[in-house]
């Protein structure tokens, strides 16, 4: 796979470069839009390609040709390539939707010129986090996407957004500081921040110290992923942002946290000492999240609470610590990114058509806008896990994995996830009844939904259906991803295959002796398969 190493940095480089370009061209909104769409289309194409390429083994790129422990590595494996592909598809659809919104609102004359650069920086940050082969690089990826998200959330600086933004920014900052503390402690304990090398060295240090490091890392990621005791910032801040921004936050940001938990739990701490704790947290996240959703009377807040609740399913899959559990969790992440984003986009349409997101004031949409009701109904049922949709398949996978463990705690989680699933159905049906079936209020605004907004939302809904139709191959893929992840050696060998320092150039003056190039026939720039 050596010939494909150039593919790995592209999902980071393209949006980052485009962000700079879009910022420089802030006076030319048309050109900005063109750049953003092109960049994200390219990112989607290359990510999909990468997903095919890495199916035969991880691809490792070393910055500056320095071999992994010395240099900084970007690692593309099945999990990161799948995450990249789904994310870039979602990013592209949301961008098109927001363009449609901007065009129909006539905001072309007064464009928010920083929207495009920030959005692209967010895309770059997400990609960087997925590809990072280095704990510090993961931190940098997180920071890029978080800073971009702070700007997007407070776009326009209205009262409501500053209020929500203050909480969101402070919570985000503190989680980053906890993560950075964990990085510093890990560096002090092991002398490295390279994930592959950490995977080896963390097994050699004192188990008590390793446990502290694991808890610190989990704490940082759990805030970002919105796991129960640390989730209360999410339903308060997300709904205030513009619909497309909320959609992309809900779809992607928490999943980057989930991805990091997956990566570190399998690679750095494969002994799974905290799995039981994670199980309980998953249960609490599912149940408390969904009870919050049931109590809500605003459809955006309701969906934010279902988002928190469904993070619990993914944590459940990770905490099982088995191959099928992890495979199902990865499938569930892919499903949930698309379906949650679709629902938020469609709620944006509902808000436009009905004039509000309050369930008490909405009504009669099934009669007024039958197309919209179909558009809402399918992903809503998908989220609730009604067969034959992908939500059902993902949940069945998790339940099977739980039953296969045959422990009482796993059974508790199985029952809990069924209850949470039923309550999701209840919350969704309640929203459906109120928004679509109850008598229409008198003052429904007479607006026509622009095709430029309905189009991308429909495209994303078709993508959720595609995940259902192609669930078989996708499930095989996620299971293969889980199989390689359960054996940390696969990752370690791919990254640390080179014995020397790689082909990086350095000064000869009094420096360490250059490594003989003839001994390094094929290291440094490529990961050896398996």
């Amino acid at each position, binding site marked *: 796979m050596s010939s494909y190493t150039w593919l790995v940095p592209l999902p980071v480089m393209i949006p980052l470069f485009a962000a700079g370009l879009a910022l420089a061209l802030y006076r030319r909104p048309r050109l900005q839009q063109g750049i953003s769409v092109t960049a994200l289309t390219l990112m989607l194409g290359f990510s999909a390609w990468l997903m095919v390429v890495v199916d035969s083994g991880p691809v490792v790129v070393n910055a500056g040709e320095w071999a992994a422990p010395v240099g900084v590595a970007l690692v593309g494996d099945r999990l990161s390539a799948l995450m990249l592909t789904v994310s870039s598809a979602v990013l592209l659809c949301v961008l098109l939707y927001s363009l449609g919104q901007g065009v129909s609102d006539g905001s072309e004359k007064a464009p928010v010129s920083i929207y495009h650069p920030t959005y692209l920086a967010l895309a770059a940050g997400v990609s960087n986090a997925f590809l990072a082969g280095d704990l510090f690089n993961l931190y940098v990826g997180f920071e890029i996407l978080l*800073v971009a998200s702070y700007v997007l959330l407070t776009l326009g600086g209205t009262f409501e957004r500053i209020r929500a933004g203050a909480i969101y920014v*402070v919570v985000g900052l503190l989680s980053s500081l906890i993560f*950075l503390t964990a*990085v510093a402690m890990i560096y002090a304990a092991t002398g490295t921040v390279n994930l592959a090398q950490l995977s080896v060295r963390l097994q050699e240090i004192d188990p008590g110290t390793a446990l502290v490091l694991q808890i610190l890392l989990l704490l940082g990621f759990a805030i970002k992923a919105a796991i129960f005791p640390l989730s209360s910032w999410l339903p*308060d801040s997300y709904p205030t942002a513009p619909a497309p921004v909320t959609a992309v936050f809900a779809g992607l940001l928490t999943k980057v946290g989930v991805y990091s938990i997956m990566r570190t739990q399998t690679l750095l701490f494969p002994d799974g000492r905290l799995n039981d704790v994670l199980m309980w947290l998953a249960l609490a996240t599912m149940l408390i999240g969904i009870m919050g959703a049931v109590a809500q009377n605003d459809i955006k807040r309701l969906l934010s609470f279902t988002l928190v609740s469904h993070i619990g399913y993914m944590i459940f899959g990770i905490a099982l610590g088995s191959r099928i559990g992890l495979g199902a969790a990865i499938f569930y992440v892919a499903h949930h990114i698309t379906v949650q984003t679709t629902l938020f986009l469609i709620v944006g349409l509902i808000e436009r058509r009905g004039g509000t997101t309050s369930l008490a004031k909405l009504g009669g949409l099934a009669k007024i806008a039958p197309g919209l009701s179909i558009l809402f109904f399918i992903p809503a049922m998908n989220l609730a896990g009604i067969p034959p949709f992908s939500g059902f398949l993902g949940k069945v996978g998790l339940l099977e994995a739980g039953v296969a463990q045959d422990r009482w705690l796993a059974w508790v989680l199985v029952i809990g996830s069924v209850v949470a699933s039923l309550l999701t159905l209840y919350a969704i049906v309640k929203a459906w009844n109120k928004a679509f079936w109850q008598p229409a209020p008198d003052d429904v605004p007479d607006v026509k939904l622009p095709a430029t907004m309905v189009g991308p939302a429909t495209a994303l809904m078709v993508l959720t259906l595609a995940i259902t139709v192609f669930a078989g191959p996708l499930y095989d893929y996620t299971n293969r991803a889980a199989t390689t992840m359960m054996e940390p050696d696969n990752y370690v060998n791919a990254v640390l295959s080179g014995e020397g320092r790689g082909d990086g150039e350095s000064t000869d003056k009094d420096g360490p002796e250059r490594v003989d190039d003839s001994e390094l026939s094929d290291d440094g720039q490529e990961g050896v398969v398996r």
Partner: protein
Amino acid sequence: MIDTTPSLMLVIAVGAFFISGVYLVLERTLTRVLLGVILISNGVNLLLLISGGRAGGAPIVGVTPDEDMADPLAQFMILTAIVITFGLTAFILAMAYRSWQMLGHDEVQDDLEDRRIARLAARNAPTVEGSDTSDVTDISVDDEASAARDDIADGRTP
């Protein structure tokens, strides 16, 4: 083998930074929260410095003998972290200023849900206390709620 025993003073400084930072972060004013965040991030930066082992010469080949070099990786990480914190400090200051522009203060406002709960508490409070002032209704429930909240914050019973 590199000597990794940290200086005790640095460890104490990290602790002091974290303690005072956490105290400030728990305040309600955004500028104080910001000061707290800055203190904590300085603490983390010092922690990173400690993680690099003892002090040494400039890590440049040919300038310092290998065994006297300081760990450059820890310093690179600190630099990156400083730049990130710097940008975010500017951003939070802008937010605090915007909040001051709109509201005249930069207090972090309550979560909607919190406010709803505080209003419920305010409605119930007179009944609980058996107070007869509850029929004086020239103040809105919202004001009562904020008053109840401030009382709790100041340690008085509502």
